[in-house]
């Protein structure tokens, strides 16, 4: 037993993810999930069509400094005379990109490790588990900070650091799923007809392990976004030419008491994005009947 709230992975029941139509109806019925969906759609829209809908060049100091919100600048201008809305839109792109790419990377690495460990057992399992246990002893954010300490700052390093910090979560879930599935009859059946290890893992085990992994991935995206914002805020994140939400907040800190919009909007952007993903993740958890995932 560890201190973590997650249910030992062995208890997860294999379950194929089906019935997305039913999930759609569930979202429509659940107010939280609906709000999450709408909010997230707005942010995704802003990220995808950023350059098209952005009212101004995010780096152009063309305007008066510290203008309050107005028709010309719906969210005002910053301390260097740049349009805040345009900067937040670019920030959306970075945040979502970091969120999705880190989780994708963590998922591939973690699931691979977990499946290998669970499937082969023995020393492979032993080595992987020792590593996972080591990482499991620390909160993900602290691990990301440790990794940035040794990798250095910058967008790529931040993505690598955060995704490595998430690897253990995915590996643990995947391993648990594999352990419970590999004794199932259909796996044994596949083996007797001579399917290769890879084929068994890929075609028979993985598809049945997706539910908890999807839930973990969703939650992880929101924590990756928070993590990137925190690192950028601390000066350990991406570069100043890239206006990310954390960086915008850190740069406008000394102007907030004179210009509330510089403090409120970037923070709201982070919070609403994370909130919308959490809302959706919660609905997903109910829908897929996954009891817990790592919440920090």
């Amino acid at each position, binding site marked *: *037993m*560890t*201190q*973590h*709230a997650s249910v030992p992975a062995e208890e997860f029941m294999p379950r194929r993810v089906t019935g997305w139509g039913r999930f759609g109806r569930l979202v429509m019925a659940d107010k*939280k999930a609906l709000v999450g969906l709408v909010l997230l759609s707005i942010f995704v829209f802003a990220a995808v069509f950023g350059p098209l809908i952005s009212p101004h060049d995010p780096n152009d100091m063309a305007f008066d400094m510290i203008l309050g919100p107005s028709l010309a600048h719906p969210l005002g201008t910053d301390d260097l005379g740049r349009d805040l809305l345009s900067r937040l839109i670019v920030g959306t792109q970075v945040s979502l990109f970091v969120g999705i790419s880190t989780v994708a990377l963590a998922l591939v690495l973690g699931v691979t490790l977990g499946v290998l460990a669970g499937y082969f057992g023995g020393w492979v399992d032993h080595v992987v588990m020792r590593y996972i*246990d*080591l990482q499991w*002893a*620390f*909160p993900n*954010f*602290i691990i990301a*900070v*440790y990794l*940035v*300490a*040794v*990798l*250095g700052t910058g967008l790529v390093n931040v993505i690598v650091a955060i995704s490595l910090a998430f690897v253990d979560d995915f590996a643990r879930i995947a391993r648990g799923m594999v352990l419970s599935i590999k004794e199932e009859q259909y796996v044994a059946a596949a083996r007797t007809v001579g399917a290769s290890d890879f084929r068994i893992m890929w075609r028979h085990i993985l598809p049945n392990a997706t539910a908890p992994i999807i839930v973990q991935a969703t939650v992880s995206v*929101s924590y990756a976004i*928070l993590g990137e*914002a*925190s690192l950028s*805020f*601390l*000066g*350990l994140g991406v570069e100043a030419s890239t206006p990310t939400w*954390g960086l915008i*907040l850190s740069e406008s*800190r000394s102007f*907030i*008491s004179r210009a509330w919009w510089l*403090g409120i909007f*970037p*923070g709201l952007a*982070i*919070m*609403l994005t*994370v*909130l919308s993903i*959490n*809302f959706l993740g*919660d609905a997903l958890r109910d829908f897929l009947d996954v009891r817990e995932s790592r*919440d*920090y």
Partner: protein
Amino acid sequence: MYGYLLRRSLGAVIVMWAVATLVFFMLRIVPGDPFAAMLADAGDMEAVEALRRKFGLDQPMYVQYVKWFANALQGDFGTSIYGARVPVQQLLLEALPRTLSLASLSFVIALVIAVPAGLIAATRRNTAWDHGVTVFAFLGLSMPDFWLAILLIVFLAVNISWLPAIGYEPLSAGFWPWLSHLILPAIAVGTGFSAIIARMIRSSMLEVLKTDYMRVAQAKGLRQSALILRHALPNALIPVVTVIGIAFALLMSGAVVVENVFSIKGLGRLLIQGILNRDYPVVQGAILVVSAIFVLSNLLVDMLYSVIDPRIRYDT
């Protein structure tokens, strides 16, 4: 039980060793020379080399590692490579009470918010109260702690001057100076955590209220408030105890960020500043102590859990 304790302690030591070793080598592979910076004003390569020798950075890495490890075992983590070159253990000893003060107060604040919120949500299930708590919990989970910290500074400390905006005063300077400097940072750290606890109390209260013995107690005609506070809550808190480990993890990662916003030179600020300056000895020392806190709290929580919940035994 004792065998288990021994094994867990050994495991903890190994984790600490592994972390320290990993960090030691990884720090030395990355570029960035702190000595060049220190001597920017003097511009003397001879002096840079002299300092490298002094800090042993001219030796092969394994020699550095053995020396560092031998010293660390004796509690000597070297000195900061900047300025007065203060011994790292002195920095850590100064930082530790600051971080622990902040973490403890955050924990108290989190409980003060979470317990009533969780109770209300559970006992008035599906009312506006319950939904309010749920929304609060989601907001708390989603709100970046550094943003809350900035807002607290700007709107409570700067504009209204209720509380000091930054810094730390030791308890020896008086209770109020100590407390007043910690209230805002503790709120910033504690709020997110209280969201998790509130959700947890809510669901475990619901479980407890469903149990047979609660039904019996209810049938015996106990007053509702007594029932909740004296019988249900203690039972509902058992699973919450298990998350004290998570509590520490969360409070510590919160503190790392929030200390930097409030200029409190605790372990988090020490760590971040060390990273930014590539002050190896400080980064190493800070990581070791932060890691030790996690490993020890994990261990402690496991022990605590076995005491509280008799169903769990470690005899295997």
